């Protein structure tokens, strides 16, 4: 099937999936940290978070990725030279995950910030009035409610993010797009192989929307839907 390229494409699909999930985890962590910083009373925390979201969302992801990949290599070279270590190659997998996580962390920051603000202050006060500690208020009231407001935005960000994973092929990671490119060149059937990549991404995004619909329903239990 596919001129014997099916197993290799499958490997590429698995790699793309790993890149997507790992950068999602990184972006979620950065997003929560960024949102907390942006909502902080301390200016020293707020200012860098504002700078982070403004700059990252104003620059194309490809430019950022090239900067991290080539710039990171240069920084590492300088460091290894100074320490007289052996030459270290920047792994395109690490660079790709780091860049995607860093970029989408900025989008997640905005999503989480809006979601935290959407939880009514009265509920937090009620928690305090019951004598809950700050940690209890966070884990019992703020976080679960915030998640409900954040899920639609997170779902959108995740859909955009999955498609951005194709960019890692440009920095030489053998993901599904890169492998399809190679297969297309050697078999002279590039359309066929790119169409397979499209099918893979369609399947991944379709599956994600099923999962997110399920999550949204789960976290909206007890919320009345407006009759639309």
């Amino acid at each position: 099937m596919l001129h014997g390229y099916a197993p290799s494409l499958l490997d590429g699909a698995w790699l793309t999936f790993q890149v997507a999930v790992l950068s999602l985890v990184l972006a979620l962590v950065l997003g929560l940290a960024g949102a907390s910083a942006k909502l902080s009373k301390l200016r020293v925390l707020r200012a860098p978070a504002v700078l982070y979201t403004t700059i990252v969302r104003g620059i194309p992801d490809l430019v950022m990725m090239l900067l991290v990949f080539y710039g990171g290599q240069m920084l590492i070279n300088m460091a290894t030279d100074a320490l007289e270590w052996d030459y270290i190659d920047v792994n395109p997998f690490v660079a790709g995950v780091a860049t995607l996580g860093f970029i989408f962390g900025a989008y997640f920051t905005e999503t989480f910030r809006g979601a935290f603000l959407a939880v009514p202050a009265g509920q937090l006060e009620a928690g305090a009035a019951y004598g809950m500690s700050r940690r209890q208020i966070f884990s019992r009231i703020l976080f679960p409610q915030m998640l409900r407001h954040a899920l639609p935005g997170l779902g959108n960000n995740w859909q955009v993010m999955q498609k951005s994973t194709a960019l890692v092929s440009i920095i030489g990671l053998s993901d599904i797009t890169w492998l399809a490119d190679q297969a297309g060149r050697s078999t002279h059937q590039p359309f066929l192989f790119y169409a397979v990549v499209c099918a893979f991404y369609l399947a991944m995004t379709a599956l994600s929307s099923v999962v997110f619909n399920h999550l949204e329903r789960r976290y909206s239990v007890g919320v009345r839907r407006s009759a639309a």
Partner: protein
Amino acid sequence: MIEWSVITDSLPQYASGLWLTAQLTVLSLAAGLMVAIPLAVVRISPRRAVSGPVWVFTYFFRGTPMLVQLLLIYYGLGQFEWVQAQWQAENAFWLIFREPYGCALVTFSLNTCAYTTEILAGALRTTPHGEIEAAQACGMSRFTMLRRILIPGALRRALPAYSNEAIFMLHGTAIASTVTLMDLTGAARNAYSQHFAPFEAFIFAGLLYLTLTFALVGLFRLAERRWLAHLQPRKAIKGHTA
């Protein structure tokens, strides 16, 4: 530490890259919007047979990476002998798909068209019932109602979401550099490979993109002030005290 010569030497390339990026963004946004308006009207049809094909179009273009779409069109079409025959015959339409510029423009236009169609369809669906009833009561035909009531209202309501789409498009054009086009990112990659100075080359390009982004944001803020004036927070009028 900063090698300014990397930037100054490549300034002409950066300038022409900036121009190409602006061109690709504006042309594809314009083409995409023009096609998206009728498609959005078709998309909200209650009949599946009518709205279905538009759904397939938007689903495909919104569910796959734009990079893969571009590669599919630029490298993929040449696979078919029929297309090659059209190129041999100098068919003006198919020749567009032999040039990277034409392929990029077509891909970007189709991609933004898909997203814009869904944004506009959403805005059309949220038209207040009263407006439609009033139009019918005035005896407007379906076409007149679309032209005077539904589409202008939907375009207004779509403005905030559309401004995001426009910024995504500006950033999306960066992948034009993967099919040999010398846009802003292409100029930066060129400057990098000539001097091996990644920070200078890419940060300068990033700053230019940032400037373009701010310009777009400002433009859309003006547009919202003009067309969504009724939703702006009310300002105190001079000379009148509440």
